[in-house]
């Protein structure tokens, strides 16, 4: 005979001389059982034979967004609005076999759940059924990211390779010297694109696989910005873009990896220069603000739609594919920036207004 009933109350132990001792033992077991179920990182729901909820652990409350008090003692469908979960628990109550299914549950935010339902004590009355619920939302998201990543890398590598193959085939067919020179330039450009992509991929993988190997040392962020802007001045001039750098006279020193911080400014500036039309303006600025160094790169390019802003730090995210095709970015620049900034304990945010421009702002502790 079980030690406690379906409501987890100690059963009466008739005919036993040490009745109170056993009841104490049962209470201790119930308490321990409750503590155990409460500590589980997966949702556990138990319903009695009348379909009312007798166990609803904190993980279940979190997954379904329902306070425990509202679920306990009531029919499950009154608090957790999932026809599928309710149906499967009833099947289990009627003696059905263990079943596992994946379902989508939405109570404000959408969650992917893996659900296992089964009778708790076979078909013996009093019947009970249990549902164990795993929140697999993040797993599914990561799977989608991995799929997109593989597909994007394949696409980004295949495009220049296809161009090179076609050019080589044409060259093999025989062309005049002028056309040949043009084709060779095309091959060089496409090869550079592939090299840039592979380098960015390797760089990102290296950043992600370990913490920064170089120990942090004092770095003057103003000096870093002036140095990078100087290297890009000629390119900006060729693109007819007004490139300015504004830094205070006093150095703003933070602890960091200088080479990585240079890469942050290079990537931000490269992005701004690529997306700003001729006669546009790009401003790089550093200032100190309440114990922080704030680095900003602002352009007056076409801007980014608000729906795209949360995604621009994702790998290969492209705001406007038609525009990006002509602007030869690898699609990894901002992902690298985010990674480096965060590995320095900083934050990076983007602000943008369509038709007005975009500002990317990094904030580091000094």
């Amino acid at each position, binding site marked *: 005979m079980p030690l406690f009933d379906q409501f987890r109350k100690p059963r009466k132990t008739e005919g036993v001389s040490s009745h109170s001792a056993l009841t104490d033992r049962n209470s201790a077991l119930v308490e321990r059982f409750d503590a155990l179920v409460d500590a589980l990182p997966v949702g556990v729901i138990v319903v009695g034979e009348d379909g009312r909820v007798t166990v609803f652990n904190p993980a279940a409350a979190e997954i379904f967004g329902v306070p425990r008090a509202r679920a306990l003692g009531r029919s499950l469908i009154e608090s957790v609005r999932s*026809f599928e979960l*309710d149906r499967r628990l009833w099947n289990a109550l009627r003696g059905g076999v263990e079943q596992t299914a994946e379902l989508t549950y939405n109570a404000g935010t959408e969650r992917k759940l893996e659900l296992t339902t089964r009778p708790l004590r076979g078909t013996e009355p009093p019947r009970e059924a249990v549902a164990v619920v795993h929140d697999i939302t993040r797993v599914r998201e990561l799977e989608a990211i991995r799929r997109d990543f593989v597909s994007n890398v394949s696409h980004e590598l295949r495009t220049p390779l296809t161009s090179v193959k076609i050019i080589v085939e044409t060259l093999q067919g025989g062309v005049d010297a002028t056309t040949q020179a043009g084709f060779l330039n095309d091959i060089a450009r496409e090869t550079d694109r592939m090299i840039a992509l592979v380098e960015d991929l390797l760089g990102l993988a290296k950043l992600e696989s370990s913490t920064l190997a170089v120990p942090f040392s004092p770095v003057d962020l103003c000096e870093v910005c002036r140095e990078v802007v100087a290297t890009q001045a000629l390119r900006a001039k060729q693109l007819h873009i007004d490139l300015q750098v504004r830094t205070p006279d006093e150095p703003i020193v933070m602890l960091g990896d200088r080479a990585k911080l240079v890469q942050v400014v290079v990537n931000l500036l490269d992005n701004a220069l690529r997306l700003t039309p001729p006669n546009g303006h790009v401003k790089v600025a550093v200032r100190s603000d309440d114990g922080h160094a704030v680095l900003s790169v602002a352009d007056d390019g076409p801007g980014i*739609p608000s729906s795209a802003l949360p995604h621009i730090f994702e790998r290969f995210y492209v705001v406007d594919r038609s525009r990006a095709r002509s602007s030869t970015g690898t699609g990894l620049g901002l992902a690298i920036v985010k990674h480096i900034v965060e590995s320095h304990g900083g934050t990076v945010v983007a602000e943008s207004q369509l038709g007005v421009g975009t500002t990317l702002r990094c904030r580091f502790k000094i």
Partner: protein
Amino acid sequence: MGRENFHRILDETQQDTLRLGSLVEDATAKAVDALTRSDVKLADEILEGDDIVDDLCVRIETNCLNLLALQQPMASDLRTIAAMLDIIIDLERIGDHACDIAQITKNLSTEPQLKPFIDIPLMATTAREMLRESLDAFAQHSADIAHKVPEKDDEVDRLYRAVFKELIEFMAKDPRAISRGSNLILVALYLERIADHATNICERVVYMVEGVPKHLKRSVVEINQAIAHSEALGSRTIGDTAAS
């Protein structure tokens, strides 16, 4: 049928109503998901699932009529049964609209997408929220929740107008877009109707709890004034087609 039995069946029937609500809410979500991903298989699943909705409606209706005929319920019990008889009609219609959207998904599956889906998923999200909260109001017998839900209907109406205006412009520019455009206008209309049904459910919940029938939906004049006011404030650009 004893009084205890009466309350048991009444409870079960209320739970069935919530099951029905959960089914049609899920069908609505899947229908819009199928539309945006052009997923014909999912659309077929929704169409097949409508039989369960219909069966559940019949079961609830039969139980309600039996309770009325055999128990002569009074006061709040009577109002609860009367409310359920109305609510299941709204829920069944919502299920039908989900099927209509699924059918449109199938019709459009062979044609290229007319434009990125932005406002239609937003409409669906708000309409679903309204439906979910109206069912919360019913489950918790809460007139407070029921009074708040219809406020969101203005947003759905505003989005409907935006989608309508935008699609008419598409069709005026390109006659080849007429078939796809008119189908998408129907989708927006179905979602707008789903939000209206959620408002109806809230009206029934208020009646069930307070015993006084109330119209919670605002008049067309009031809605127009609210939309004009929000547009004047520039809170959002109507017909926003910005997409990544």
